């Protein structure tokens, strides 16, 4: 324990032992205790599970271990992944919370190329008719770490836990916008959404997202005020969040303050450079992180079809013989998931899993299948297909991209028996 660097590699369990030792009188410098004590998510966003995997404490970026995620039909706020782009400190400290923000004065501004700009009170939105959307919300970077098998991509090294299955409630977006009678100009091609959050420095690009005004996904979008039956926690975008079911997390703008009708998409770097996917397959070294243009790439809009194995995980330490392999599958909600093929031998043989009906087109489907594990290493794989014939690539590395988005390769879990 004499070296400061040793503390960083200690698990929380080891810390518990250490804290016990400290109580017995060993001299541990206060800074070491502080550094250790701070590693859990509940101290970054009070109420978050201490088991969360932290990717950036200053920004409150964290993902859910699958051992927790699989326990719930609807992912509770205590374990739902979280991603913000700016420090939630100081004046922005209020949204590092799982409580619903008390912002009775919150308004939504509707502006841009419109004849009649409006400012609508949240209190008035809350009185409008609400609809429910059960939808997977997933970080576009979910699974980024798996691209490292081809070439490692910079940024948070997400595994599969940057996703959750969540019940949202709110006001249908299209109907709401029609009712406001803002009279958009004929030249309008884009709807841009902006949130309250601001960059750490005035030179930083603000976060905003633009959607084609005719995008069919907006037909299902809502101005959400509730998550899992209660007002949306600040950390998850309350008091008001744009939810576009079936779209990657970054498209679901948090702490929403502004909607703009525009003839061009937002110049925000988060629209023009970040969160984009190349239109054609690219190789490491040939297409770099700053080679994205509006012409050669698209924003990370709709979820790629995906399946994730929930059980067994290596942590379950299953024995040899019969085992139930379970998991979830989802896509962008435009067609039902029709098949999940599962392999217990690294893809040599496949069998069809039984799929339970999903709660909504955008929710995840649960699937399960019986298989057998042999002594030694077993490679479990899952591969979903939908009614449009869209399927996951068996080798997700074929979709390698320099910013590491939209991982949807066949899931692989290695189990040693």
């Amino acid at each position, binding site marked *: 324990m004499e070296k*400061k*660097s040793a503390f*960083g590699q200690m698990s929380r369990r080891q810390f518990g032992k250490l804290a016990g030792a*400290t*109580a017995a*009188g060993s*001299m*541990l*410098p*206060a*800074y070491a*205790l*502080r*550094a*250790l*004590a*701070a*590693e859990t998510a509940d*101290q*970054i966003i009070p109420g978050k599970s201490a088991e969360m995997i*932290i*990717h*950036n*404490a*200053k*920004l409150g970026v964290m993902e859910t271990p699958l051992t927790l995620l699989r326990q719930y039909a609807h992912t509770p706020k205590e374990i739902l992944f979280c991603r913000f782009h*700016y*420090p939630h*400190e*100081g*004046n922005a*400290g209020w949204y590092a919370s799982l409580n619903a923000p008390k912002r009775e004065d919150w308004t939504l501004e509707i502006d841009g190329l419109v004849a009649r700009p409006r400012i609508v009170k949240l209190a008035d939105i809350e009185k409008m008719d609400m609809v429910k959307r059960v939808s997977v919300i997933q970080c576009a970077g979910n699974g980024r770490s798996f691209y*490292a098998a081809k*070439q*490692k*991509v*910079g*940024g*948070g*090294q997400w595994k599969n836990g940057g996703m959750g299955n969540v019940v949202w409630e709110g006001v249908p977006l299209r109907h709401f916008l029609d009712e406001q009678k803002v009279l958009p100009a004929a030249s309008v091609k884009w709807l841009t959404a902006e949130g309250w959050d601001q*960059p*750490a*420095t*005035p*030179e*930083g*690009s603000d976060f905003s997202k633009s959607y084609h005004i005719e995008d069919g996904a907006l037909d299902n979008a809502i101005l959400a005020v509730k998550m899992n039956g209660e007002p949306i926690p600040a950390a998850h975008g309350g008091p008001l969040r744009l939810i576009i079911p079936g779209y990657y997390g970054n498209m679901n703008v948090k702490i929403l303050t502004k909607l703009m009708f525009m003839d061009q998409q937002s110049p925000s*770097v988060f629209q023009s*450079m970040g969160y984009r996917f190349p239109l054609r397959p690219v190789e*490491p*070294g040939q297409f*770099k*992180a*700053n080679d994205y243009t509006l012409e050669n790439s698209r924003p990370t809009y709709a979820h790629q079809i995906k399946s994730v194995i929930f059980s067994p995980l290596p942590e379950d330490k299953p024995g040899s013989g019969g085992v139930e392999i379970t998991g979830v599958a989802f896509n962008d909600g435009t067609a039902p998931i029709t098949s999940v093929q599962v392999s217990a031998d690294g893809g040599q043989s496949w069998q069809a899993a039984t799929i339970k009906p999903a709660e909504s087109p955008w929710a995840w489907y649960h699937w399960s299948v019986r298989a057998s594990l042999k002594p030694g290493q077993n490679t479990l794989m899952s591969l979903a297909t939908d009614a449009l014939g869209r399927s996951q690539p068996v080798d997700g590395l074929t979709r390698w991209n*320099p910013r590491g988005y939209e991982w949807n390769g066949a899931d692989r879990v290695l189990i040693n028996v």
Partner: protein
Amino acid sequence: MTRVGFVLFIAAVAAVLSLPARAADRIELPEGPNRDLVYAKCRTCHDLQYVKESAGITADNWQALIEDMGQYGLRIPDDERKKIVQYLVTYLGPNPPKAAAPSGAPSPAVDGEAMYERQCSACHQAHGGGLPGAFPPLAGNHDLYRDRMFPVYVLLNGLEGAIMVKGASYNGVMPPFDHLSNAEVAAVIGYVRAAWNNAELRPSDFVDVDEKAVAQARSKPMHPAQVHAYRAAHPAAR
């Protein structure tokens, strides 16, 4: 340890554990030339876990990533950008060398002005002007003379909590700069206390901090919120 000492120690441990944590500010990167620039320039917007998690990416990718950061607000001279890239490519690239042991050689005389430019100007800006709403100015900032040790505590431990500076409120989080040596901390504080007409704020009987004073402060770590409380307990002389 005496029984009373033991009780006090446990009480101190409990006090530290009950405070909101700032472990993110303590993420360490491998020792190497210009590591201090990464500490100084990157933590304005995010903690260093992103840097650490990205370890192993190619030189090209580090280059692109740092260029990209310009769009997210990184404003640094070209030579500093090159040094940062060089450090990252070398020590956090695909084939990093074994960590260099700290040389242990006595550090050369420290230039406080150069230290300010290198370590402080990313947030507090050239000439100590600060950025309204984000980073308080150091020029004309009475906190510099609030107490002999206060700026030392801020540098070594960081500062967290709302403050008023020159009539404007700030509520950011300053990370600790404890990667600086005692001599560097003393030199940069000496520079800032004299620069930009700050010497005019100086009380007549004021004693500058030296390496020894910094070393003493370093041996008693504080939580950034405790530094904030210390500030409140030491009203600025006007």
